[in-house]
């Protein structure tokens, strides 16, 4: 079969996809061993054994002071913030992106504003952000929302604006008013793209979550990473990062599966 048409089966795809990840892991182990043969106390690329022992305490042992399993407490806290941030961002992307995409006048009015907000690096305005939202959970969620919502809005608006003009015309001849077009034509076709935009935003969302937790927090995956960074404790940081990657890839997969299930029409059936 040709390269452009050969689609590997389920098992083949799994094996192919796993290969580079395994190669990467192997490469790490070799690099780490090499560094350790030079300097046995190297902290930058810890050996897998060191990571296991460092993580064991966080995963399986209750913290004496707080009585929590730190790793799980961190995970829960971060996931909670992430869910809130992604939820709000998605909702606002849907609302704003939809009208922006479907109504040219609104696009003309708010488009430049959204672009400006999208390109302003929120981390440059952290002081204002924390002053506005306080040092609590709100600020962390707000940073995620401000970080990813403008992107999601623009992506969705672009998709809606690119829908064939014939569809709008057709809906109008079927008796729709502008609201009807938004509700029954633009909205349903926006949803699969929203899932796509959400998938693309997962990476930035984690970046902003980690940044927010680095500034002010007392629990969370990002907090722990920044806490132990002072000691260059890569034996904790690398497993934490791998865990983040695993969580994110799982979310990505879940999103892509749900989209296929919910919006089969958008994923070109067997044809």
């Amino acid at each position, binding site marked *: 079969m040709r390269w452009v048409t050969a689609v590997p089966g389920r098992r083949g795809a799994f094996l192919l996809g796993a290969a580079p990840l395994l190669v990467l892991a192997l490469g790490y182990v070799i690099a780490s061993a090499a560094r350790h043969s030079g300097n046995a106390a190297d902290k*930058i690329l810890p050996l897998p054994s060191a990571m296991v022992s460092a993580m064991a305490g966080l995963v399986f042992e209750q913290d004496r002071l707080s009585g929590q399993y730190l790793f799980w407490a961190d995970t829960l806290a971060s996931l909670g913030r992430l869910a809130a941030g992604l939820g709000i961002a998605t909702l606002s992307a849907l609302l704003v992106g939809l009208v922006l995409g479907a109504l040219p006048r609104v696009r003309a009015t708010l488009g430049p504003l959204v672009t400006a907000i999208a390109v302003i690096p929120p981390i440059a305005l952290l*002081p204002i952000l*924390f002053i506005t939202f306080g040092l609590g959970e709100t600020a962390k969620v707000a940073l995620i929302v401000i970080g990813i919502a403008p992107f999601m809005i623009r992506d969705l608006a672009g998709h809606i604006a690119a829908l064939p003009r014939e569809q709008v015309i057709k809906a109008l001849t079927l008796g729709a008013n502008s609201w009807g077009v938004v509700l029954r034509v633009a909205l349903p076709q926006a949803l699969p793209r929203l899932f796509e935009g959400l998938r693309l935003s997962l990476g930035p969302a984690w970046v902003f979550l980690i940044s927010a937790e680095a500034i002010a927090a007392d629990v969370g995956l990002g907090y722990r990473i*920044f806490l132990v960074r*002072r*000691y*260059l404790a890569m034996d904790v940081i690398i497993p934490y990062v791998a865990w983040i990657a695993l969580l994110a890839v799982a979310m990505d997969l879940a999103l892509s599966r749900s989209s296929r299930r919910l919006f089969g029409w958008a994923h070109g059936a067997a044809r």
Partner: protein
Amino acid sequence: SGGEDEAAAPRTEFDIGWSIYAGWMPWPYAEQAGIVKKWGDKYGITMRFVQVNDYIESVNQYTAGKLDGVTVANMDALTIPAAGGKDTSAIILGDYSNGNDAVLLKGSDSVAGIKGRQVYLAELSVSHYLLARALEKNALKLTDVKTVNTSDADIAAAFGAPDVTAAVAWNPQVTTMKGVPGAKAVFTSADIPGEILDLMVVDTKVLAANPNLGKALAGIWFETMTLMAKQDAEGAAARAAMAKLAGTDAQAFEGQLATTFLYTDPKAAVAAMASPDLVTTMTRVRDFSFAQGLFGQGARSADAVGMSFPGGKTLGDKAAITLRFDPTYMQLAADGKL
């Protein structure tokens, strides 16, 4: 965002910011161990200790009025809130850095070797001050090196890179950085004892309306000091708990404490604050800060920011005093009147 009226009014709830540093770990420990609650109950107030991972951000939030008090070094208290017009009272002198801050070089064991290098440090912080003092003491000028601004959270990792050969930092990072092959601390705060002070500062207006806050903080601090100074199992347990809060182990934390001169005795702390040495130190600090432009564009001289010291001494603009070294509450502790 406590407006002016709110700041001046009596209240019962207060937010105090802290960040990770050997000399400040007693505060979160006291909260965890119930000492904060105990003193709060005694004076009928509630104090929340808010951890801010990023030190500068904690001071900014205090300046912006989001926090009523914050842990801060003397120089930053002067250049951030005080220079920003926020009337600030330093009510607890916790310690001075006695080796916690250091200039580190790779492949050289004297300050002279720093000449011409790129020095990685948090610019305009106490590290910058330490570097200036180290150069001055070795007949060098700031222009003999090139500084590269590096955030305090990243500096340990940065020093691990082969092309970084000179850095200035504070603990706990310094301990980590000394472990880098070929690295040596060529100048530390132990060479300039008493110049880098670690304080608890609060908003003067809030304090005036709520003197109980000052009393409670002093009570908390010195009770915790007494506990952690104990050379028995109880003291060791307290120190181990602080180590854990700082994300490190007991042994490393003890090492950091060894380079921190803690004022465990309130009388000694009061004496240090009243000493003329403090005026000398602060004069040096403000001259350095002014020379670096830390008082802002509008400042015309080093006198732009006013400071007051125990016994009515002042420095700078008497009409605009915004940093007050106020030993009242430490004195109450020394007198056992809390």
